[in-house]
């Protein structure tokens, strides 16, 4: 008995703050059609989990992420376009939910900074090589 209690104390308490409900049909099950499954996976890796923030819903074990996966697979199976599902989610959770931010005034640094840094790197390297030669 004591041993069991000891063992129980190692179980994270947050594990109890989760539903006992079985996972939704397509939360952990691939679609039968390989092409549709690939499209669903591509989208799921680019949708951010709203519970375990920083993970995509394909990596997350959160119930809500599982339900989102099932929803995405079901909708793709019905023939909906991944881009339309992404837009639908952005309308509800904001740009935050997508790992593929479009180019806009706020995201411009995200897209332009790597190019700028690459340019600076190239310039530094060119200078360095010239210095070596001389």
């Amino acid at each position, binding site marked *: 008995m004591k041993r069991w209690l000891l063992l129980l104390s190692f179980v994270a308490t947050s594990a109890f703050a989760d539903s006992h409900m079985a996972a939704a049909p397509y939360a952990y099950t691939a679609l039968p059609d390989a092409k549709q499954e690939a499209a669903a996976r591509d989208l799921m890796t680019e949708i951010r989990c709203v519970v375990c923030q920083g993970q995509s819903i394909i990596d997350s074990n959160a119930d809500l992420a599982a*339900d989102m996966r099932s929803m995405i697979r079901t909708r793709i199976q019905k023939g909906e376009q991944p881009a339309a599902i992404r837009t639908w989610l952005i309308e*509800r959770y904001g740009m935050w939910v997508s790992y593929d931010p479009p180019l806009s005034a706020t995201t411009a640094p995200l897209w332009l900074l790597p190019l700028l840094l690459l340019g600076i790197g190239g310039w530094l390297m060119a200078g360095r090589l010239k210095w070596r030669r001389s």
Partner: protein
Amino acid sequence: MKRFWLWVPVSVFALLAGIFVSQLRHPSGNTIPSHWVGHPMPQFDLPAAASSRPALSFANLADGKPKLLNIFASWCIPCASEAAVLADLKKQGVEVDGIALRDTRSDLDQFLARNGNPYTHIGGDVSSSVAIALGSTGVPESYIIDGKGIVRKQYIGELSPEDVPALVAEIRAAQ
């Protein structure tokens, strides 16, 4: 001039270190507000989740009277302490409807018997479909829905007794 350039990497490092330290000490808010506020409630028709309350559909919410829609669950710990606040709102004439997230009937019946039942309707959202369509990120969450079924405001997390006067005023204003 060369002296000046020598300081550039150091100052860039100091700047970045400053940003990292301040962000680590005060992490930016990790709540993701719903962007669906201002839009009509999604068309939905959820089955009854509890034995003692009828089911919940879009038509129940858009019946001309503003309401508080509470997303909760029997497995959600803060939802239990929030029940007292919802009971207080009901006493002040606010209609409270509930969506039970990923819940079973027996668990929910026990939860309501233990913590009280301020809800008029309770719909069971087994696959989080309505929660996702609302831009919800978890339980508990509450939404003010006006008489036409438009989402007016979202409250993330447990409602506290201090929120009650403002909530009552806002719900009365949301005709």
